[in-house]
């Protein structure tokens, strides 16, 4: 199937905005992503040692005692995200096994940096209580003060370091 071009950013933005609005109108909450990943982490930790989860106040709020971390709105939402992206990818002819990177590094180097960058983002997202979805986008739309501060910090951190990571991308 031939690959179709991506949708106009302004049209995609309106659609994304309407989905976000629907989320607030239906569920009273915004979209998220990193929260569901944290629940997955706690599921594994629970399976290894319930005692360890119970003794850590941060982990206990997700999976203390009989709490099932997967019994959560965000977990079902993120399953929907994967389904929605598969549908869109199939329609657009973009289901392609590949690694996107700049021309000056190898796939293997790209994967190593993906793990490092992911780890930093994951840590930062928990510290800031949410990522680009839950904080910057959803919090941004409700005009939450801290969400805008975090959004600005995300872009400051990224643009601030971009010069030094240019070999990865351009």
């Amino acid at each position, binding site marked *: 199937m031939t690959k179709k*071009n*991506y*949708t106009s*950013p*302004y049209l*995609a933005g*309106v659609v*994304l*905005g*309407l989905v*976000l*609005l*629907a989320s*607030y109108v*239906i569920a*009273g909450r*915004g979209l998220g992503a*990193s929260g569901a*990943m944290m629940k997955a*982490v706690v599921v594994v930790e629970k399976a290894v040692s319930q005692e360890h989860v119970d003794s850590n106040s*941060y982990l206990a709020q997700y999976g203390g005692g009989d709490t099932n971390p997967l019994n959560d*709105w965000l977990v*079902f*939402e993120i399953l*929907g*995200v*994967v389904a*929605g*992206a*598969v549908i*869109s990818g199939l329609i657009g002819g*973009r289901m392609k096994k590949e*690694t996107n990177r*700049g021309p000056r590094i190898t796939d293997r180097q790209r994967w190593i940096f*993906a*793990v490092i960058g*992911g*780890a*930093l*983002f*994951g840590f*930062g*997202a*928990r*510290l*800031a209580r949410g990522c*680009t*979805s839950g904080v910057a986008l959803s919090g*941004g739309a409700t005009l*939450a*003060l*801290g969400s805008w*501060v*975090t959004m600005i*910090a*995300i872009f*400051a*951190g*990224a643009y601030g370091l971009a010069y030094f990571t240019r070999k990865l991308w*351009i």
Partner: protein
Amino acid sequence: MFAPLAVLNEWSDGINYLFAFVIGIGFGAALETAGFGNSKKLAWQFYFRDLTVFKVMFTAIITAMTGMIFFDAFGWIDMSNVSINPTYLWPGIAGGLIMGVGFVIGGYCPGTSFAGLATLKIDALFYIIGALLGMFIFGEVAPLIEPFYSGRYSGYMGNITIYKFFGISAGVIGFFVMLVALVGFYGAEWAEKKTGNNIIN
């Protein structure tokens, strides 16, 4: 007043989760069709070559924000039952900076990495493994940094919004956000031309 539907009608978890899944489908499809399954497209924003992320994100924020301001003004939505992210100033800034660094190194953010994984991007899989690892580390050290995370050094300000902070109406701030976004869109189009029209299709 009819919204938020799930809260006012006291929906069961089952119905709530069903709608969560449907909303997620819309979210995932919007991310993928915008091109956010492609890490290079995401990263090129930081080199002013492809500013799709800025355009999509701010169009979405303005759309949802305007909708909510009007729904609130018409008395359709009970904003006291809408979750407003709490402000913890210092961990919010520190976490944001770390996320930014992770973004430009890793090429994805968590939401977009799922769009990448769904469309078979191998780098997205590695990114997700890294993100889970980073969250695991945070979970382990969270009790140690509690004073900074939520204690007396966290700069906790409650569920405050920009308009409450400045003591003006949401509409005024909303209008200001729109103006900033419009100037930003103009600047983004200009920058993309300036760097040679390298938008990834």
